[in-house]
């Protein structure tokens, strides 16, 4: 597993052993960054599913997820159920797996999220479900998302988490992404 960032605090634990739910890697930003990448996932033979838990703040409100250095967002799609404090509505995305308009841009206020990446090591299309939300002063949103990668069917070996489309934004200091492995039979 490797880390593709500068200015980070990083803790890693060797895979294998332990329980059925293991911490694999954590990235906490000490400098702003366009993206966080978890790589080397092909070596995680002990695990069937992955989970990413995060607290995040950016200079844009959208998070984009991509796999295996395939950064063509047209190869991903998803749909979301959102609540914004006034109404509940659904959105469809044909441009990336994204959690839209839910990342905090406010000082001290961080968005919380849990992303499950199911059967990541199989030759399936890659299914992601997320629960993300923030009760900010200006940004108020709770979202459930389902996303898939439908262009290729290959094991997921790396995960890239972009701040805004194409990583054009900046994750802010204090943002933290932790990767966990969940064992199967």
């Amino acid at each position: 597993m490797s880390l593709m960032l500068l200015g980070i605090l990083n803790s890693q634990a060797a895979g294998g052993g332990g329980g059925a739910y293991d911490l694999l890697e954590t990235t906490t930003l000490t400098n702003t960054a366009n993206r966080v990448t978890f790589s080397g996932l092909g070596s995680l033979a002990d695990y069937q599913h992955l989970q990413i838990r995060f607290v995040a703040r950016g200079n844009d409100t959208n998070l984009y997820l991509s796999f295996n250095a395939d950064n063509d967002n047209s190869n991903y799609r998803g749909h979301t159920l959102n609540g914004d404090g006034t109404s509940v509505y659904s959105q469809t995305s044909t441009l990336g797996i994204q959690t839209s308009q839910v990342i905090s841009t406010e000082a001290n206020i961080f968005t919380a999220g849990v992303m499950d990446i199911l059967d990541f090591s199989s030759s399936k299309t890659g299914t992601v479900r997320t629960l993300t939300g923030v009760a900010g002063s200006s940004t108020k949103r709770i979202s459930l998302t389902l996303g898939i990668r439908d262009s290729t069917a290959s094991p997921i070996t790396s995960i890239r988490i972009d701040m805004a489309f194409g990583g054009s934004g900046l994750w802010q200091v204090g943002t933290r992404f932790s990767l966990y492995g969940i064992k199967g039979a």
Partner: protein
Amino acid sequence: MATPTYDLLASTTLATSASSVTFSSIDQNYGDLILVTESKGSVGSGAIPTRFRLNADSGDNYSYVLMNGDGSSANSQAITGNSFGIMSGYGTPTETQAGLTILQIMDYSATDKHKAALTRANTSYVEAIAQRWADTSAVNSISVFCFTSGDNFAAGSTFNLYGVAK
């Protein structure tokens, strides 16, 4: 060996009815806290709105945004400046309807951010809730309580607190 990741920190099963449950002196060596509760109201309580406070803070420092559905309609609500967090929104446990709640408090031991939480609650509603405690202090105690004076959680209600390493 991998790092111990998802550990039970404390567990309470009520032997007799009680109006609140408090976990204190919480281990600060984890990244996130997950509180899983399954509760009913004691006989005569009726519906029991259930709330929580962090570090016994009763100031107006809690905010939330929720969405839910009850089988016929979907709703969203946002509240700022409450004196408590919520274990569920529109739905509440009753004598016969258990309230099942998973409350996740992220980066609870950090001191550089307000505390963000995600909740999934199932009562007569299915709900998802984002919450914020507008305080940068590390969380060292959680108190879950019946909002209405005289209400009680029924005996047998369970409250389990887990720590997730980061």
